[in-house]
């Protein structure tokens, strides 16, 4: 006997009403239909015909439902035949007018009811979608912020940056007089503005701090279309030398140090010891002005030095806005011509110098970043695809179970299109729910991420993470993705379900149709597809992880593990004399070296591994070597150098290979000396370095000859995994600097030493700003930050992909095995050994897995080749990684097949035979 209660409930589109009333109506009708069915059977009709006979009583469920509803509405008119009937007819007619809307509304109600009846299914699907769509939304919002940052400026495509072309190369900077002349003579620009990026000391209430500062002409911010978010910008009168000192605060600094108080406007603060009046707060958009600083804390006027000497100093950055209608190419040509004229007019400074234009967004966010963004989107899109395959499989499974429902509906005249539409509405509802959940999850996750790493993250991800996610483009992206996802996973099952042949499926126990989207072939294809997509993703992840791990362990030329470092910049107004500066660092290293737990302490003008403190970039000095012609075009006339204290090498653990280290006696008044790194020695002097000499700053006022007294081992890297650079070391007393990095080598417990070091230096002078004390782990970690973030991200994606693919595989296998339970039972009943049957199932499973893995490998190899140039220490087609991942996926696939197969075999064959 068919389940009429279910049939009525599913087909009668009753509006929401009290549950009891609905139940009663359904029950009564079900009983009625059951009576009709029994009567028909008694008349000799078979199962199927009797059902059709009973259902014939209700040709139009919708009209029936609306009749029932209107019958139960209290009537306003008196009893009688005609009036009531007219009212009913009128009500029905109104419904037919908005047919499509009513139909969709009915589909939605039906879908909601169907979904609500299977809460577990609903939960799993929405969760899967939330993960997939959420991850994609998060990545999109990140990439969007990353690439969109330069577009915070008004009409950013019309903005250009100036670049100077010299024999040594091309530079982002330009000299002020050159820029001013170009601005005056060129007709292509609305305006030209200049700025420089530097540092300043903030003292006064609060800790002394070294902050990033921008000095800019008054027209820069208006040129960019920006205005102060509080207070005002400075005017061109304040750019004049000698004008009253004013400053604007960066938003983060304002909130952090001044609590975001508006009354700080008009107050004075001490910048480099000089009182400056705070006139405004900067908009956050200024932080994207340069890729060199993470954030701008102070904004100061820029008095331009336009004298002849200044023309040779590439001291500033210049930004200009193109006039409407002028293209970058046209302006570039004009600027090139002007530069040529300037070269003729000022041969001393401008000979051989050209000026080039680059679009500002391009100079801030170069193409490589965009490529990276695209790659991230593709990777996370792959995960969503895998999730969709899972969902499609799940929906196919449930569609197969609902075969009878669809057969009945088709028999009752519901067109194929109707069924497809209704199933698509279900998919759409699921996808929208998943999309919404995903959006919220993404917002929450990014919030956590930003909070945890606020110091490290690039500045455009501030100030609020919700701005990152809950803005229009991201919302639209999530919506579009949800819709696409609904189609991706919903269409195939919908099409398959609608194609059910009517006759046979009304009977119970009929095996599921095997052709079309419901067929086994199609589902096999989906499984293979999942494996094929997962494999490249996991391999990329493994390769990246190995790349990062190898990088981390790469030889840096010295044992840095016990090293801690901090950056110190002496306020120039209190340490004006070079000898005072050198003396301070002598005292500082002595004080730190005397601390318990410190084996040795030294200082240097830069760190061997890049610029971890932002502002101690490796310096370069011009040299001359007897008997060697240094190729100016290749920049050989400059070399990287560090000014160091005597104990520096000991502190870092750099070996003295020959000769000696610097000593106390290497002072300003004594003979100029130098120490060279092994690489530098080998390049110019081979083994005759000791005793040779070189000329420092030839042709300048400070030209001097230095004798080489020692050779030390190569230490440091310019890029992780690259070769050690050649380095020249000078005694800090002979090359004093206000800015040095103090390094200390811990004898034992590093952690214990860290707080002591800062305190020791402060004890010498409380007003000297000190950067955070960092360990080598911190420094290397920061250097590898981008790579590590990428690796971590890929690892997360790969784990997600593997998880989803595994779930999909297990589900698929379980379903396939369940379908074949009868077959398995028969085989066992006929005497097949359980092991053989198991082997059969496993073999089928293995075949599927191998196909998937092979397809995946086919995809992976070209990707591996593409990545190869970026990877360090591991090849793009590293056999170990590929083999490992392949093996992993095969094991997962086989386990997915093994578990349900074993369970099926344990079932009593008699039960299995009755199974349907």
């Amino acid at each position, binding site marked *: 006997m068919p389940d009429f209660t279910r049939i009525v409930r599913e087909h009668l589109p009753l509006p929401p009403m009290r549950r009891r009333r609905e139940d009663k109506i359904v029950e009564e*009708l079900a009983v009625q239909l059951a009576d009709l069915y029994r009567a028909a059977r008694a008349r000799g009709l078979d199962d199927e015909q009797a059902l059709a006979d009973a259902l014939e009583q209700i040709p139009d469920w919708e*009209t029936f439902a609306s009749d029932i509803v209107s019958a139960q509405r209290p009537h306003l008119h008196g*009893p009688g035949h*005609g009036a*009531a009937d007219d009212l009913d007819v009128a009500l029905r007619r109104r419904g037919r007018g908005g047919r499509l809307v009513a139909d969709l509304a009915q589909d939605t109600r039906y879908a909601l009811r169907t979904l609500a009846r299977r809460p577990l299914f609903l939960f799993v699907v929405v969760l899967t979608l939330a993960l997939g769509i959420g991850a994609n939304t998060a990545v999109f919002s990140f990439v969007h912020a990353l690439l969109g940052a330069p577009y915070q400026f008004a009409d950013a495509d019309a903005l250009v940056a100036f670049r100077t072309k010299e024999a040594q190369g091309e530079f982002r900077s330009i000299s002020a007089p050159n820029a001013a002349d170009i601005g005056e003579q060129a007709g292509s620009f609305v305006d030209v503005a200049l700025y420089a990026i530097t540092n300043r000391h903030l003292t006064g209430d609060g800790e002394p701090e070294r902050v990033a500062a921008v000095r800019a002409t008054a027209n820069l911010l208006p040129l960019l279309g920006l205005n102060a978010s509080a207070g005002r910008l400075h005017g061109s009168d304040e750019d004049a030398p000698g004008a009253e000192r004013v400053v604007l605060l960066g938003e983060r600094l304002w909130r952090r140090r001044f609590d975001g108080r508006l009354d700080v406007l008009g107050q004075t603060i001490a910048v480099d010891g000089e009182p400056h009046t705070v006139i405004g707060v900067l908009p956050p958009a200024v932080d994207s002005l340069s890729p060199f600083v993470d954030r701008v804390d102070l904004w100061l006027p820029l008095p331009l030095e336009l004298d002849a000497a200044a023309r040779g100093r590439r001291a500033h950055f210049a930004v200009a806005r193109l006039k409407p209608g002028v293209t970058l190419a046209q302006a570039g040509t004009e600027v090139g011509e002007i530069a040529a004229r300037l070269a003729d007019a000022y041969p001393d400074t401008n000979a051989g110098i050209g000026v080039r234009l680059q679009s500002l967004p391009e100079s801030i966010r170069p193409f490589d970043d965009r490529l990276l963004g695209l790659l991230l989107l593709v990777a996370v899109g792959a995960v969503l695809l895998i999730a969709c395959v899972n969902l499609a499989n799940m929906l196919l499974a449930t569609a197969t179970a609902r075969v009878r429902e669809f057969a009945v509906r088709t028999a009752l005249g519901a067109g194929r299109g109707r069924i497809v539409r209704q199933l698509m509405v279900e998919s759409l509802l699921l996808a929208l729910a998943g999309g919404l959940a995903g959006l919220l999850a993404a917002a929450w996750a990014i919030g956590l991420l930003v909070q945890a790493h606020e110091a490290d993250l690039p500045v455009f991800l501030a100030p609020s993470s919700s701005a990152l996610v809950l803005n229009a483009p991201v919302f639209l992206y999530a919506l579009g993705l949800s819709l696409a996802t609904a189609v991706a996973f919903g269409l195939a099952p919908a099409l398959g379900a609608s194609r059910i042949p009517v006759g046979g499926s009304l009977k119970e126990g009929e095996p599921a149709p095997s052709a079309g989207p419901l067929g086994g072939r199609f589902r096999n294809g989906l499984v293979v597809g999942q494996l094929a997509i997962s494999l490249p993703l996991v391999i990329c992840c493994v390769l990246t992880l190995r790349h990062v791990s190898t990088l981390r362990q790469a030889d840096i030329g010295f044992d840095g593990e016990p090293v801690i470092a901090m950056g110190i910049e002496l306020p120039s107004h209190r340490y004006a004399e070079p000898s005072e500066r050198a003396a301070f660092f002598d005292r500082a290293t002595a004080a730190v070296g005397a601390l318990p737990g410190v084996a040795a302490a030294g200082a240097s003008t830069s760190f061997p591994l890049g610029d971890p403190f932002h502002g101690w970039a490796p310096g370069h000095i011009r040299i001359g070597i007897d008997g060697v012609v240094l190729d100016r075009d290749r920049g050989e006339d400059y070399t990287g150098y560090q000014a160091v204290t005597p104990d520096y090498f000991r502190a870092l653990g750099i070996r003295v290979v020959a000769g000696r280290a610097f000593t106390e006696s290497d002072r300003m008044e004594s003979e100029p000396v130098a120490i060279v790194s092994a690489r530098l020695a080998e390049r110019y002097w081979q083994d005759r370095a000791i005793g040779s000499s070189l000329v420092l700053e030839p042709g300048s006022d400070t030209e001097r000859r230095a004798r080489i007294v020692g050779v030390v081992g190569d230490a440091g890297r310019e890029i992780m995994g690259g070769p050690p650079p050649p380095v020249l070391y000078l005694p800090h007393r002979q090359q004093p600097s206000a800015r040095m990095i103090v390094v200390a080598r811990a004898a034992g417990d590093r952690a214990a030493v860290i707080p002591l070091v800062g305190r020791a230096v402060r004890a010498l002078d409380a007003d000297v700003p000190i950067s955070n004390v960092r360990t080598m782990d911190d420094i290397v970690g920061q250097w590898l930050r981008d790579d590590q973030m990428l690796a971590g991200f890929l690892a997360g994606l790969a784990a997600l992909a593997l998880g989803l693919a595994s779930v999909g595989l297990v589900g698929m296998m379980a379903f396939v095995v369940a379908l074949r339970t009868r077959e398995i039972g028969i085989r066992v009943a006929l005497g097949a050994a359980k092991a053989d049957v198991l082997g059969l199932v496993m073999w089928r499973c293995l075949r599927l897995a191998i196909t998937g893995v092979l397809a995946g490998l086919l995809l992976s190899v070209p990707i591996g080749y593409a990545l190869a140039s970026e990877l360090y220490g591991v090849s793009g087609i590293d056999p170990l990684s590929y083999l490992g991942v392949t093996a992993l996926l095969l094991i997962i696939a086989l386990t997915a097949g093994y578990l349900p197969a074993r369970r099926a075999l344990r079932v009593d064959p008699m039960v299995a035979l009755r199974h349907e």
Partner: protein
Amino acid sequence: MFSAELKKGSLELIVLTLLGERPRHGYEIGQLIEGRSRGQLQFRVTSLYPVLYRLETRGWIASRWVEKAGEHRRNYYSLTPKGRKILVEEQRRWRAFTAAVDLVLGG
């Protein structure tokens, strides 16, 4: 055989009459109509139930679930006192109507 309008108009009266004899459930009513009219009157489920519900909403009939041994429970309808009064009134009106029509048709 008879037009839908004609049938629709009289169904309420038919149902009330049948329930006037004794309480009945939906299926039974349908069967009785078909049986007593010797197959000339057949009402689908879709016509019958709205009428039953309408009569119930007006308070002319009332329903009650009754369980009988060995069977699924059924919803039995019966006349309310008000319904009984209406039935008498409607029967009288029907007979008057048909008599008048007969007169016109030439009896």
